[in-house]
């Protein structure tokens, strides 16, 4: 650690390598740097462990008080929106699922709903596919909230919360693996429906999950709800009221912690959410603790919805209702996957059908797989309530087989803008709690 004088404008720069704070202070005293002024600019991130990925915060400190905070994003920009313009609409799902990697199924759902609205087939999506979508999204909400609360605990120094949270999240990921074959980046929800039906035994596993989960969430609540250390670190911390949320475009648990029950599942339902019984949890504390409580309550409500989905999926259904992909052969991806002796692949029945029974089926298969389907020109905006707030997909088509432009309104992107409002004037230690209560996912912010 050596003091180094840079250009006048920048002042003296100290490189901090960790464990050398006393050296920095001594060097600053020795250099007699601006006597009487305590202002210090600290660059937190982009590799700081508590910044949820590669978020950089430039903090101006006066003692331990944050006088200015500037979030810097862009370290994880991957050009997903640009790439999607060079793939078919169906292939687009495999890209957008990678944006907000903690809630991949919401990304897929937003994009699929937008594509379906452009095609005008929203009402033609099979009932079963919609129920499976709701089921998967609610499972995903639980896994995402668990991750948020687990890392929240870790960042405040509670490793038990992390271990418990991740252990329970693993149960959701096991279900995902069973149903989609993957733990993340599923590409499961697609324009027209979902890629495949639930495998045998999935309903039992889901019921088992719904059975054990309330107890495990209760354990998590015992760890945190009334924990004096946790309360001291979160109560009245990172305050943002309703007016602030509206001004800064903040949605999701942060908005609901101000007392406004704004949840797109209730106010502008999609995928048949209006037919499920659940409540929208709210708190009126406007602080980090309120957001934690909203997330915990939301997980319990998600379990209610999952139970209703399981009932609907398990119920006796007429033969024609078993589809999970739209019946229109010019849009619906033709094949159902099946588990063969050599792994998962196209179902042998489908291959037999196209290779030796139906010329039209072969043509449809070939055209859909190589060319994709055409989407009438126009633009739509489809929004879903992701674990972090309103996830919107603005899709523009020029009538071709590829999206002309897809833009995702990621809730983390908008919510991060509120960090200065939450943190400025507070203590530096509370910045950690503020970031954690915002629950940003940089993959979604930068796309």
């Amino acid at each position: 650690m050596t003091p180094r004088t840079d250009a006048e404008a920048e002042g003296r720069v100290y490189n901090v390598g960790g464990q050398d704070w006393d050296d920095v202070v001594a060097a600053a005293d020795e250099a007699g740097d601006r006597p009487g002024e305590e202002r210090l600019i600290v660059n937190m991130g982009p590799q700081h462990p508590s910044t949820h990925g590669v978020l950089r915060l430039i903090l101006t400190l006066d003692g331990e008080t944050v006088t200015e905070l500037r979030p810097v994003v862009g370290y994880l920009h991957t050009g997903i929106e640009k790439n999607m313009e060079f793939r078919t609409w169906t292939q687009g799902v495999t890209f957008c699922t990678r944006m907000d990697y903690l809630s991949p199924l919401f990304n897929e759902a937003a994009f699929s709903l937008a594509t379906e609205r452009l095609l005008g087939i929203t009402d033609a999506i099979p009932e079963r596919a919609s129920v499976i979508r709701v089921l998967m999204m609610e499972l995903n909400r639980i896994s995402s909230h668990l991750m948020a609360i687990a890392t929240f605990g870790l960042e405040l120094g509670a490793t038990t919360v992390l271990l418990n949270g991740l252990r329970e999240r693993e149960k959701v990921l096991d279900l995902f693996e069973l149903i989609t074959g993957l733990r993340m980046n599923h590409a499961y929800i697609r324009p027209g429906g979902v890629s495949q039906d639930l495998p045998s035994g999935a309903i039992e596993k889901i019921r088992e999950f719904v059975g054990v989960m309330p107890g495990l969430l209760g354990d998590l609540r015992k760890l945190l709800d009334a924990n004096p250390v946790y309360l001291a670190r979160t109560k009245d911390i990172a305050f943002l009221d309703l007016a602030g949320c509206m001004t800064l475009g903040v949605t999701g648990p942060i908005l609901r912690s101000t007392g406004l029950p704004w949840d797109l599942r209730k106010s502008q339902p999609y995928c048949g959410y209006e037919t499920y019984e659940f409540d929208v949890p709210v708190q009126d504390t406007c602080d980090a603790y309120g957001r934690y409580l909203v997330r915990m309550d939301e997980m319990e409500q998600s379990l209610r919805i999952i139970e209703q989905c399981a009932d609907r999926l398990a119920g006796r259904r007429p033969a024609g209702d078993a589809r999970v992909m739209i019946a229109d052969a010019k849009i619906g991806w033709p094949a159902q996957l099946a588990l063969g002796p050599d792994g998962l692949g196209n179902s042998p029945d489908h291959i037999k059908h196209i290779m030796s029974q139906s010329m039209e089926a072969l043509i449809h298969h070939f055209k859909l797989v190589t060319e994709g389907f055409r989407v009438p020109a126009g633009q739509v905006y489809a929004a879903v309530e992701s674990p972090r707030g309103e996830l919107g997909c603005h899709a523009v088509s020029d009538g071709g087989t590829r999206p002309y432009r897809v833009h995702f309104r990621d809730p983390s992107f908008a919510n991060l803008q509120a960090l200065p409002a939450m943190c400025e004037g507070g203590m530096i230690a509370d910045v950690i709690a503020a970031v954690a209560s915002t629950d940003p996912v940089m993959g979604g912010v930068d796309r």
Partner: protein
Amino acid sequence: MTGEKAGDQPGKPAGEAPDAVGDAALAGRERLSEQVARTGMFGTETTGDTSGYGGLVVRRPPALSSPRPYGSYFDDLADDLGRSLEQAGVKFGEAIERVVADRGELTFQVSREHLTTVAGRLRDDPALAFELCTGVSGVHYPADPGRELHAVYHLVSITHNRRLRLEAAAGDSDPHLPTMVGVYPTCDWHERETWDFFGLIFDGHPALTRIEMPDDWKGHPQRKDYPLGGIPVEYRGATVPPPDERRAYE
């Protein structure tokens, strides 16, 4: 109310005597003077296309407004906005160039001079009450001369549970739009993103700097004239070209 205003198509004859044959011929000539959007049907330029559609010429459709009634709550919304704009001394037809009601969504194409006025009325008028803006999305239309760059704003009214889309356009030669930060501060980062990706300059923005790309990046990557890039991938002797060089079925 001038919601029926017929787009921005020049040379539309007005007040002529009804002459079906002459009108049809004129309409045909007008149609032929439209810009060609694409030719062919299957993306092939060579003799490989035996479909008979190789000579197809598709022209850019004229930009028309939706006729009244728009349906749903859209008519009320347009009326309320018209009344509110009158109070601010702006005519509805002046500020709103086109109204498009499509697929259950309402779009107002706003002239850029009146963008902040319209947004301000939409936010502050209790009959409209669009409290929340969910950001800006840019779209680049190189085939739309003079209006290549579009900024699309999605507004939400929590009070009335309504949604609305505003669209404003600027040309490549003069890529300026007024900033919305004064009305909806959440547009701060979204406008930076739109500048970064499309090169749209938002006049009056407090700090219009790049947000996703590095500060010294050249060009604006989401524009249609910006290549995707990529390298051919070889696998077991076969070569797969990069995505932007593969066959497109446009």
